[in-house]
Every structure is written in C-alpha cells, then in structure tokens.
C-alpha cells in the first residue's frame, strides 16, 4: 500500500517534537477525519532554520509531516510556500489515492506556520512602529 519511503518516514519520523520558542506554529487537519498536524518553525533571515512536528494520524499523515519538515529546512519562506501537498506526496514516491485528501495536509500546516510567523512579524513590526510613533 505505502511506498518504501513512506514507510521509512513513518517508522523513523524526522523532526518529531515541539520548538518551545518557535517563530511560527501551524495546525492543520480535523479530528473528525482523523488527521491533525502541528508544525513549529524557527526562522532566521527569512529562512527556515528548523522545523518540528507533532501529528495525530495515520501512516501517511506522519510520513508527510516528517517529509515536509525535512524539505523546508534551509529554504526561504517564499520557497517553502511553493511546497504543495502534492510535492510532499511525490517526494515520498506517492501515496495511495484515498490518502491524498485527508492525510496529506502537512504542506498546509507548514504554510499556516509561515503565515503565523509573518503575522507575528508584522504584528511585532506594527508594535515597533506603534512604539516608535509614541
């Protein structure tokens, strides 16, 4: 059913865990369909220096989470935003068709983490701006 690469990432997932002082956190998925992924990123100079995940879900969900955290390390935020769920699946040598929809959301979680970082950054900037204006 699963490719060898999926099984490898499932069995030995890379980057499991949380980043306590993360710059961005993204949560994607839905307990109703059984897959929830949370991704933490550490950003420096617009580049993702570290990424970690926690995932509740099936083999595909865990493997895609693991793969996406591998793929993004060292990428700029804009590059990271280019990574699609399909690209993650491809990097894993494909996923069974019925897994494409609900278990292949790790890229979405990553994008949310980047949005979170950018929102925060904007917020900080605004706060700084606001501070400067005072």
């Amino acid at each position, binding site marked *: 059913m699963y490719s060898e690469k999926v*099984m490898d990432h*499932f*069995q030995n*997932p890379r980057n*499991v865990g*949380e980043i306590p002082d993360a710059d961005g956190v993204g*949560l994607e998925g839905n*307990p*109703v*369909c*059984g*897959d*929830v*992924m*949370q991704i933490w990123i550490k950003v420096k100079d617009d580049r993702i220096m570290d990424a970690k995940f*926690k*995932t*509740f*879900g*099936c*083999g*595909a*969900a*865990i493997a895609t989470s693991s793969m996406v955290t591998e793929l993004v390390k060292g990428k700029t935020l804009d590059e990271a935003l280019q990574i699609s769920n399909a690209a993650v699946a491809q990097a894993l040598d494909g996923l069974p068709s*019925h*897994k494409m*929809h*609900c*278990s292949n959301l790790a890229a979405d979680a990553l994008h949310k983490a980047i949005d979170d970082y950018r929102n925060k950054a904007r917020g900080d900037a605004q706060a700084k701006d606001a501070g400067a204006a005072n």
Partner: protein
Amino acid sequence: MKRIYLDHAATTPVAPAVLEAMLPYFTEKFGNPSTLYFYGREAKQAIEDAREKVAAIIGARPQEIIFTGGGSESDNYAIKGAAFANEARGKHVITSAVEHHAVFDTCKFLESRGFEVTYLPVDEDGLVSPDEVAKAIRPDTILITIMHANNEVGTIEPIAEIGRIAREKGVYFHTDAVQTAGALPINVDELKVDLLSMSAHKFYGPKGVGVLYVRRGTKLTPLIHGGGQERKRRAGTENVAEIVGLAKALELAQEGMTARNERLIRLRDRLMNGLLEKIPELKLNGHPTRRLPGNVNVSVLYIEGESMLLNLDFKGIAASSGSACTSGSLEPSHVLLAMGMPHEVAHGSLRLTLGNENTEEDVDYILEVLPGIVEKLRAMSPFYSQAHSQARA
C-alpha cells in the same frame, strides 16, 4: 519473523480437516450437482449432506438452508429479497445503527428505491433495546434486521427478545450471524428468526461461501436469478467444494465449542486486563460481559488506529482498527460513533480478536510490544501533549 494473527473477526485460515474434506470436490468429484449422471449425483449428495449437517446444527430443516457466496450475499439477499417480495404489505424496515456495511448499505439502497428505514440507536455498550424495536414497529413494517453480535466491539444483541417481539407483530426478522456462527450456539427457533446469515471464512472455513437460513414460508425475491439451483432460490452452479468445507467447518466449530470458548475467554480477559494495566488512558469498548469470546476492543486515547496497526505489523502482529484510515473512508467506524464515542477516540480504536491457534504467549507478546508503540505515538501526538500540559496547567 514471528507472526501473531489477532484478527479472527476479519477472517480465519481454513482448518486442515476442512481443506481435506474439500479437496476431492475440486478434482475427482467435480460434477455439476444439477446433472443426473454419476458425477452429478455424487456432487449433489455432497451438498445435500452438507445441508443436513448445517440444518441440524442450527435447529433448522434442510430445505431452509440456502448456500450463498458469503455473508454479504446472504445479508443482501435476506434484506432485498424480503423487501421486494413483501413491498405490497409495506415499505418500512427496521435496523440498528451498528450493523455491518453489508446490512447498512443494503438498507441505504432500499431507501433509494422508495423504502423507509429506521436506524435504531444503541447504548454506550453497543446494545440495541428490544423496547425500542417494539416502539419502532409500524403497520407497514415488513422486516427487522439486527445483527447477532457486532463485528467490531463484539457486543451480543438480545436477538431472542427482539425475535419474540417481531413474531408477535408478524414482522419478518433477519439476523446477521456472521460473527456468531461457529462461535456461539445458534438455534433458529430459540432466536425466533426467520432469516439468518452466516459466512464460512469466519469459522475456519473457506472464503466465498455462506448460508442464508430461510424459515419455511418466508417470501423472498431471489437476488441471483437463473438456473433452478437451491430450489430456485439462488441460481448458479453450486460451489460444491466450499459448501462441503462450510459444513465441515461448522461441524468442527460445534464440537467442543464450550471448551474452546472457555479458553478464548480466559485469553481475552488476560489480554483486556493486561492492556488496562500496562497502558494508561485506555478505554474498553463494547459490552463488558455480553461479548464474543475472542473479541477485545479498546480505544487508546490521543493516538490514531492505523499508525498503531502499522507499528504492530512491524512486530508481526495482525490487528484491526475502527479508524477511518483503515477503511478507506473519511469517517471512523459508524459503530463506535453510534455508541457515542467522540471522533478522535474512535480513530484510536484497536480490535484484537483471538482464535483457536492463539496462546498465552501471543497475549503476553502483544502486552510486551504495544505499550512501547503507544508511547512512541503519544510522544508524537499533539493531543497528548495538549491534554497533559492542560492537566499540568
């Protein structure tokens, strides 16, 4: 690799004695039972002997036994057959919310063809209430179909009580006994059923052969039309070898059932207690006592079933889950949801079903292996850390 099979509710291996009984009917005794010459008579005799054996075991008459292509066909035939043959009297069917898909999807099909179906709720143990059945019966109710025991959580339903009610009201009563045939004593008169489904591969017989018991006088429209086989009730050249296998398997299951079940219950309780002891935040599913001898069903909080199964498979253990991911659908088990379980808990269910070849060592092996798997997956689970940081907070 050491392999431990703990999914006997899904299927069972064919017992050696069963295969041996089947073998001649593939090759030397290969006749078509509808023919009148030697080879045909020999094959006909074999299926009639099988019919008598099955009938005797479930307290039926031989003419009331129809051989089918499996449990799903039996369920489809019973339900569509009764519905189509009796629609002039009414178009209402009663079932439960925890039926196997062979019943559930068939009821959905009937709805698409103008029938009305009541899906009775169950309690948190998975039990259907006979009172609810009685209340749901209407003047246009033509069929009640409630399973004998649930394939996921193992809960045994009060079939005889429901049968009494159905008979009082003159409504046909079907039970899907696919999980109980060969596992529990079955007597169609005591259960007061008009229709009963079985499938050989659940009791160490071959896949692709089943039985529909049809009480004399029960009107059914055939599911498979054609030749005059099975007294014109199920067309198609009979699967002689597998029919012989089914009867042999049921016979073997009947012999020494009590002793086998005592052993299974001991193993089951050892497994259940072991799991409760070794794994925190684990919930038993299904009725605590009214359950199939070999069935253990638990929910392991905060983790998902498929990832548990894959890890168990790495260790050579074959098990099952009500997680959506294992069914190819988006929803977790409708059975667990009907019992009131939240989605994420249903996704974390694990079914271990014991069989004749399992030993205490098998039980101990899984008790040794599973806690580590659970720990690993919980360490990866956002729900686990959330729950525990909240607890700490």
